[in-house]
């Protein structure tokens, strides 16, 4: 059932994304899509994979801002994903020495703090371009989990003792089931899902607003010709910094909600900082199409639809074990065959045919 929802989501989003279709058709598709997403928990038993897709989407929308619109390929946003999760957990934890804040305070607070951290880091790394920028951001991604484990700041006898658990698991309360109009809404199936949906909607909402704003144009101008943009009056430092911080904010938002659903956060929950998570946000945007409004949505749904399809076909054990390997292969395949994403078909620039993939493959040969 989840697969059906994901596939429908892909189709509806594609319709909404086509500039060629009439406005009424596109608006209609959006409405149906929204209804579908809201009604999803009612028609399926477990919404886990949808939750995963939606939070991944929010994070991908974040990457889209800096990597897609601005053209600065950050390989470090996963650091903000993880940091957001850990900070939120730290705030929400009821263990001694922690503030035990409710989730609707803890999560926004965490996102805010990560934004500030990103601003500081951004001012340093944004002085770089191209290869250098990408590697520096990769460095951020590698350094961040170590930073969280830093005994000096976060160990048992330090400034902020055991904020991140100090080597032991950080527990925090999950969402309780809710009572609405006499019905019990199971937290796992409904409430977490809607929280995830909210992050995705924030992601796409921010992107839509960005695309229409002066900042959005400035970012694309920077991507296309940074020197000319600057000569034309664009304050490139401010614009790039805003883009970077925005991307980190969305990463932290998705990450903290993802972390919230985990039962606890161990300092070894550095699975959050994994290469897979790092690449996932980039591949999602690539599959859909960089620098577009619907690209990340379509990309996320396609990725998770593939995952779901594989799972139902072959049994969860096999897939789970080989998931990372298959994902890495997917990255390579997408980069070679589909670097401009599916949007190139939706935008009418190319007619769909298998030959396009082959052409993409050899387009950049020596």
């Amino acid at each position, binding site marked *: 059932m989840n697969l059906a929802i994901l596939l429908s989501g892909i189709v509806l989003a594609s319709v909404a994304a086509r500039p060629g279709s009439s406005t009424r058709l596109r608006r209609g598709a959006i409405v149906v899509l929204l209804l579908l997403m809201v009604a999803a928990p009612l028609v399926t038993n477990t919404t886990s994979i949808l939750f995963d897709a939606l939070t991944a989407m929010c994070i991908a929308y974040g990457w889209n801002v800096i990597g897609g619109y601005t053209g600065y390929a950050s390989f470090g946003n996963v650091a903000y994903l993880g940091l957001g999760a850990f900070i939120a957990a730290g705030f929400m934890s009821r263990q001694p020495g922690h503030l035990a804040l409710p989730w609707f305070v803890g999560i926004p607070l965490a996102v805010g703090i990560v934004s500030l951290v990103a601003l500081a880091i951004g001012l340093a790394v944004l002085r770089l371009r191209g290869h250098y920028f990408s590697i520096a951001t990769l460095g951020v991604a590698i350094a961040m989990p170590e930073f969280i484990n830093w005994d000096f700041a976060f160990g048992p006898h330090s400034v902020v003792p055991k904020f991140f658990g100090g080597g032991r698991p950080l527990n925090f309360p999950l969402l309780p089931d809710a009572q609405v109009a006499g019905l019990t809404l199971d937290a796992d199936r409904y409430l977490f899902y809607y929280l995830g949906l909210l992050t995705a909607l924030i992601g796409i909402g921010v992107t839509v607003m960005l695309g*229409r*704003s*002066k900042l*959005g*144009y*400035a970012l*694309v*101008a920077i*991507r*296309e*010709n940074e*020197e*000319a*943009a*600057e*000569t*034309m*009056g*664009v*304050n*490139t430092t401010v614009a790039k910094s805003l883009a970077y911080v925005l991307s980190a904010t969305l990463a932290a938002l998705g990450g903290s909600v993802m972390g919230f659903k985990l039962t606890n956060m161990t300092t070894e929950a550095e699975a959050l900082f994994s290469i897979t998570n790092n690449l996932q946000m980039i591949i999602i945007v690539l599959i859909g199409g960089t*620098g577009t409004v619907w690209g990340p949505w379509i990309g996320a749904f396609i990725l998770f639809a593939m995952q779901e399809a594989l799972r139902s076909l072959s049994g969860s054990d096999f897939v789970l074990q080989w998931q990372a390997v298959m994902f890495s292969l997917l990255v390579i395949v997408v980069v070679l065959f589909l670097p401009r994403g599916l949007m190139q078909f939706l935008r009418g620039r190319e007619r769909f045919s298998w030959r396009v993939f082959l052409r993409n493959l050899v387009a950049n040969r020596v």
Partner: protein
Amino acid sequence: MSAPITPPLLSIRDATRRFGGLFAVRDVSFDLAPGEILGLIGPNGAGKTTLVNLVTGTMRPTSGTIAFAGTVLNGMRPHRIGRMGIARTYQVVRPFANMSVRENVGVGAMYGAGGSTRSAREALRRADEVLELVHLASRRDDPAESLTIVGRKRLELARALAMEPRVLLLDEVMAGLRGTEMDEAIELIGTIHRLGIALVVIEHVMKVIVGVCDRVVVLDYGRKIAEGTPAEITVHPAVIEAYLGKRYAAAHARAD
């Protein structure tokens, strides 16, 4: 009866730019009056484009002063200089490829001198007006990369005009144009002049310089070697020597 002296719009004093041991621009001084059309010529490598880069802030002068309407520009970042009212076109034309023609010009309207009070939508509407001026209105929604070289040059001009500049530096606008295309470009320069914008025209095509410019500054190896009206500099011995070599200059001088 002499005309009242108006303060120069652009004032360049001993502008110098070094790259290690090489002087790309050396002790160059001249003024640009409001509404004037100034030609900037010289053999290849004379430092013309570098000089433009110094004015727009893309490069910092090693020494010397560049002032615009009284304000010193040295060390200012290019975007601030752009917003003050100085715009340029590039020798190698590169539009924002993945934006439409309209959006390309819109960026200029959003971030140029008049941009701070405009919304994105207002800027795009202003872009339409500018596109009319350069005869590109019919292509407004096309992707910029679909334009031919002539269209791209017009777009380059439109982008700069949308910034509402008081000074416009044109870097070899004529390169790659032929015959009627060149005449159209000259016509556009006239239109821009009538808008009251001061122009610095860098060109190799003497027909354009002679036909359009009020005054001409000549550079060679980074130094200014002559300044005057087009008629004056075409017979100036240093200019002839720079372009055609010592022997020709000597022969020419003897012939007078």
